[in-house]
């Protein structure tokens, strides 16, 4: 029985072992995004700071930190400062339940998937508080858009998660991954996989659904009034959320830390490698989509969420449960 202080130290070290890689990979993801966009648009992308420009994001962070933090005089000061912190905190606390491998997770709780769903649905508060506290018209419009958008797509994400849970019979994330040992859920539940990725794009306010920060109509949307480190926190949170949603996709549909086929040279590689590679692939899809598709109009976004995804996912829940029940495949 280790002493309490030792346990706390181990806990803190464990938390750091998640948070630090996430923050570093945020910086690398920003660099990757600019490189991918550059490649798609036949440009070079960042190539000056460090070898191949890999230190570009770190230089950008330093630049943001040294800038002056402006407080609009008509804003609600407390909420204005609080909103970016809340956004970043929410995008980091979700990592508490993400299992990187079958043993490596900070908190292995019974209802991990519901916890993730709850935390990701709280994410809208940062945006909406920021938009309201700025007391300015573009942030406010951005906040309203994002509130409506995130609630709409949460509904279909919820049904997709329910479909997976019916196949697993547990709300524990490790159980969800382990039930995919032989067959990734992306194969039998392919339509749900696609719906989930598209909804994840909408949930993280990424293109083609980045209407809350649509620069063509709203300047910068909800963070128009933000500068310096408070802008940096929003930025960090957005990319941390992207990584989080990719990890969730990997856990729900791509078999987490399992190799594609369970044969010798593949299953000898540690699971964390497979996990990271799958997350990387999903992230690449995020960036690819950004480079390829034009932005949705607001009514099209709502139509897609409520009139296409909601009926589709709802029907798929019924079909899946009926299929499993009829063939006696329901998990106990």
């Amino acid at each position, binding site marked *: 029985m280790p002493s309490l202080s030792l346990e706390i130290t181990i806990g803190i070290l464990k938390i750091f072992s998640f948070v630090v890689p996430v923050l570093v990979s945020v910086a690398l993801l920003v660099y990757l995004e600019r490189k991918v966009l550059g490649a798609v648009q036949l440009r070079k992308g960042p190539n000056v700071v460090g070898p191949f420009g890999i230190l570009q994001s770190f230089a950008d962070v330093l630049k943001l930190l040294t800038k002056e933090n402006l407080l609009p005089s008509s804003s609600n000061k407390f909420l204005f400062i609080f909103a970016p912190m809340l956004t970043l905190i929410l995008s980091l606390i979700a990592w508490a339940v993400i299992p990187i491998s079958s043993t490596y997770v900070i908190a292995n709780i019974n209802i991990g998937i*519901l916890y993730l769903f709850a935390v990701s649905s709280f994410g809208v508060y940062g945006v*909406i508080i920021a938009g309201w506290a700025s007391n300015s018209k573009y942030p406010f419009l951005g906040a309203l858009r994002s509130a409506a958008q995130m609630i709409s797509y949460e509904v279909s994400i919820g049904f997709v998660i329910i479909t997976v849970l019916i196949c697993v019979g547990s709300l524990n994330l490790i159980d969800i991954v382990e039930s995919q040992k032989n067959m990734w859920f992306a194969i039998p539940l392919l339509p749900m996989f696609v719906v989930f990725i598209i909804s994840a794009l909408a949930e993280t306010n990424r293109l083609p659904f980045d209407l809350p920060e649509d620069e063509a109509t709203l300047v910068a949307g909800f963070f128009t009034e933000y500068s310096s480190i408070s802008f940096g926190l929003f930025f960090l949170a957005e990319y941390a959320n992207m990584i989080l949603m990719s990890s969730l996709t990997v856990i729900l549909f791509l078999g987490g830390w399992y190799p594609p086929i369970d044969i010798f040279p593949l299953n000898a590689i540690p699971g964390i490698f497979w996990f990271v590679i799958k997350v990387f692939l999903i992230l690449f899809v995020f960036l690819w989509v950004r480079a390829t598709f034009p932005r949705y109009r607001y009514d099209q976004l709502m139509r897609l969420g409520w009139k296409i995804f909601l009926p589709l996912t709802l029907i798929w829940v019924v079909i899946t449960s009926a299929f499993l029940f009829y063939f006696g495949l329901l998990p106990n």
Partner: protein
Amino acid sequence: MFLVGSFFLFAAFLITTCIFVIFSKNPVNSVLFLVLAFLNSTFLFILIGAEFVGIILAIVYIGAVAILFLFVVMMLDIQITTLMYNIKRYVPLALLFAGIILAEIIYLTVFKTSKVNIDTFIRSKNNTEQIGDVLYTKYFIDFQLSGIVLLLAMIGAIVLTHVYRPTIKRQNIDSQNSTTAKDRVQLVKIKPGEGIKDD
């Protein structure tokens, strides 16, 4: 010891935030305190081991209901003084509801004794499975009835707010997709000096 301490901590937070919900001058702050109140009640549920109920409370009330409240309240332009004046008018109604809830709590805790030995029931399975076991079997009728109540409320809200305006222009995606070049563009050969007749 730790559990009891956390209970009193969260309960104290819960009551404090509820008081702030009522006495905040700014309605947006009221809603944000309401969110904190929901969060604290989630913690209380988790403390008694009902983590499923707690998280569902958080998802439904914080993740959806309170956001919609906030959404509406943010767009209001309320005079703060009239709001404070109005609160006093609702005191009798509030006392009535508080009395009903108090009576229910007393009825449930004092007069009605549960037939199930709750302690062994709780330990035997996790509460997610327990709810799953009884929701569609023992409480099937109640569950469906509450669903119908919610459906009625939803239809009511749609009927109240939906106004059909024939003048409003909408995008008809089917007709747009079924449009071909022939419907929109016409190739006309114009002889010199004639021009196109407008028909």
